[in-house]
């Protein structure tokens, strides 16, 4: 969907009466880029740890090595989800994101599924392609040799095949499916329960084609690491993302707010949280195989607050921080800043309650169930908090911007154009 970008002339904020208190726009953008750099570096490091755990699982499949790989996947999501706040404001991130975090997926493209489950998608001819089981596959009119399962096959041929977004062959959720398998418990308790024997070579292999499944998992994990390395490099001193951000400071400030607002409202509150409740459909769960959706939502919320406050606590506990957007807004309108900070704390707290409830035994897919009023209340509280903070983000835009007039044609061709 097209993003509706916000008009903003950040430089005008610096002419306000509180000029002395405001940091320079460049300093704020430096902090933001430093946060991104640290966040993607942490994402890369934890994905490399996942890669090691996957190698160990494939080398010696056991309940222990499978659990260790799952634990490594969960740990890798913590820094990555916090980087989602960078996505919608930066074209270079948004264009790349589909490779690493695409969702929802027709997992039958990758491996076996329960035929009575919702994995069947009438609009997607490839929804049951099952590459693990089929060395020769046909996409459209093209026959493809999939004997070797490589990162190139996944990223270049299968991913988004036929232009269908549900054909997710790569990224965290493909790996998640390969580690957990389908969650066939509906809105009842329980996550995916793939046995480690799905990776046993030779005798004892379950699910068939264990060697090809292992090759798929290996290729998908390697590709994830390579993709994250690319994005981490984009935020280094001369990286593409940082350069693009600094090239136009007013547009850069707009990018921060656009990322915060689009993630808060349309994506997180709407698509990922509220919609699932309205549909009562467990397929509408972001991490539907592992039932770790609560973590995804919580760290998204934390990431939004991070970019506003200009502070990120790294995986090793160290803190990256500096002059922040909050400082800029405060100089323009202290009341707007105070409200937005309170709203961000509110959403992190509400998402924290969701996380606590899930860790206490009520997974997100159970919260979606028809008739689960306690679950619905937890979800609605988080949604309300995210909507409230979106309104405050719009007010921050208004506080920093002036007459927001619109110049049209750019917006159609270039979603990152700033209307002014």
């Amino acid at each position: 969907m097209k993003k509706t970008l916000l008009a903003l002339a950040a430089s005008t904020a610096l002419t306000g009466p509180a000029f002395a208190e405001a940091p320079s726009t460049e300093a704020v953008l430096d902090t933001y880029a430093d946060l991104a750099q640290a966040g993607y570096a942490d994402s890369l490091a934890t994905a490399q740890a996942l890669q090691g755990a996957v190698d160990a699982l494939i080398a010696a499949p056991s309940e222990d090595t499978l659990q260790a790989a799952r634990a490594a996947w969960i740990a890798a999501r913590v820094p990555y989800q916090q980087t989602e706040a960078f996505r919608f404001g930066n074209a270079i991130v948004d264009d790349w994101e589909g490779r690493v975090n695409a969702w929802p997926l027709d997992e039958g493209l990758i491996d076996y599924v329960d035929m009575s489950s919702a994995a069947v998608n009438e609009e997607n001819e490839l929804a049951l392609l099952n590459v693990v089981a089929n060395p020769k596959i046909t996409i459209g009119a093209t026959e493809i040799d999939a004997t070797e399962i490589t990162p190139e096959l996944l990223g270049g041929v299968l991913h988004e095949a036929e232009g269908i977004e549900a054909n997710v062959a790569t990224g965290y959720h493909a790996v998640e499916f390969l580690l957990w398998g389908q969650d066939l418990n509906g809105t009842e308790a329980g996550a995916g329960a793939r046995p480690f024997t799905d990776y046993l070579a030779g005798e004892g292999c379950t699910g068939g084609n264990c060697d090809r499944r292992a090759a798929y998992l290996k290729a998908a994990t390697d590709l994830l690491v390579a993709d994250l390395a690319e994005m981490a490099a984009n935020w280094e001193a001369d990286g593409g993302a940082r350069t693009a951000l600094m090239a136009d400071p007013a547009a850069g400030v707009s990018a921060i707010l656009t990322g915060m607002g689009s993630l808060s409202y349309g994506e997180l509150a709407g698509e990922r949280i509220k919609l699932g409740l309205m549909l009562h459909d467990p397929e509408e769960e972001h991490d539907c195989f592992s039932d770790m959706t609560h973590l995804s939502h919580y760290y998204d919320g934390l990431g939004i607050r991070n970019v506003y406050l200009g502070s990120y606590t790294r995986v090793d506990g160290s803190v990256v921080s500096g002059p922040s957007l909050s400082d800029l807004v405060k100089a323009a309108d202290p009341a707007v800043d105070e409200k937005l900070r309170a709203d961000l704390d509110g959403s992190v707290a509400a998402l924290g309650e969701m996380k606590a409830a899930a860790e206490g035994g009520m997974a997100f897919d159970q919260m979606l169930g028809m008739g689960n009023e306690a679950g619905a209340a937890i979800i609605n509280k988080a949604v309300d908090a995210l909507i409230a903070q979106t309104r405050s983000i719009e007010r921050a835009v208004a506080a920093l911007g002036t007459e927001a007039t619109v110049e049209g044609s750019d917006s159609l061709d270039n979603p990152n154009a700033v209307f002014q």
Partner: protein
Amino acid sequence: MRLPALAALLALASPAMADVPEVISKHVLPGYAAFSKASADLAAAAQTDCAAEGLRDEWNATFDAWLGVSHLRMGPVEEQGRALAIAYWPDPKNIGGRQLDAMLTKADPALLTSEAMAQVSVAARGLFGLERLIYGDSAQISDAYACDLRKALAQDLAAMAATTEAGWTGGYADLVLSAGAEGNATFLTASEGRQALFTQLITGLEFDADTRIGRPLGTFDKPRPERAEALASGRSLRNVTLSLTALRAMAEALAQGLGEIPQTEAAFDRALDLAGKLDDPTFAGVSDPSGRLKVEILQQAIQAARTAAEAEIGTLLGVSAGFNSADGD
């Protein structure tokens, strides 16, 4: 205390009104009243005769009325997911179809009460739930449960329409009209009220171009005519035309009293003219090059209307579009 204020505003001679009051009195409230009336008629018809064929006229009239307000995604219609429950589309994984099939198989009478129906998945309810039962394969089902389900869905739709209308007349219209007044915690400035309405206009145009037309267009190599909206009932183009007509009226009302919007009007007229001349009610022509070109040109004309409205009306109102629920992917 607020109701008299609204009544007073609505009683004003219409030419004197400007932007927000104009939109509410001439566009929003009559639109919801018409939708409420049409859906009540549908519910009444279903009580009399719940066979699929007998409901088609009233169902179409209700869909027509919904298109007058379907772009308004603020206020009462956003509560309890009503907008989604009224018209859940697109539904690429056929959640609505699966849920309805499950309901027809299970034939649980407990689900037919209005309280239970309000708890059912939004994908199975509303206009598209009913479309499946009066045009789709399920239209052939003549058993008592399918019949009762049509009645219950029509009743549920009418209830949502009435609640939405009552929400506007009973408070939300006042809230928008009093944007910026002391004690209004939703719209802190007059500008926020204008921006909220303006966002609906822009988002509505985006939905027509990107989703109603963009989904069946697919790509040149892979057109997707099967993804057109309301395909079973053959209303795909009609929905675009009626939506554009409503959005044009909203654009006029937003600009009322503030200035002229010649480019916006011309762009709307061109899009409506193209839609009127397009002899392709379900966009089936997207699969062949010449038919596809006509649909693409209509899409571009709608995008041009959006561009013009952003420039002209955005300037007149002094706002830009805010975040909307379609942000994200």
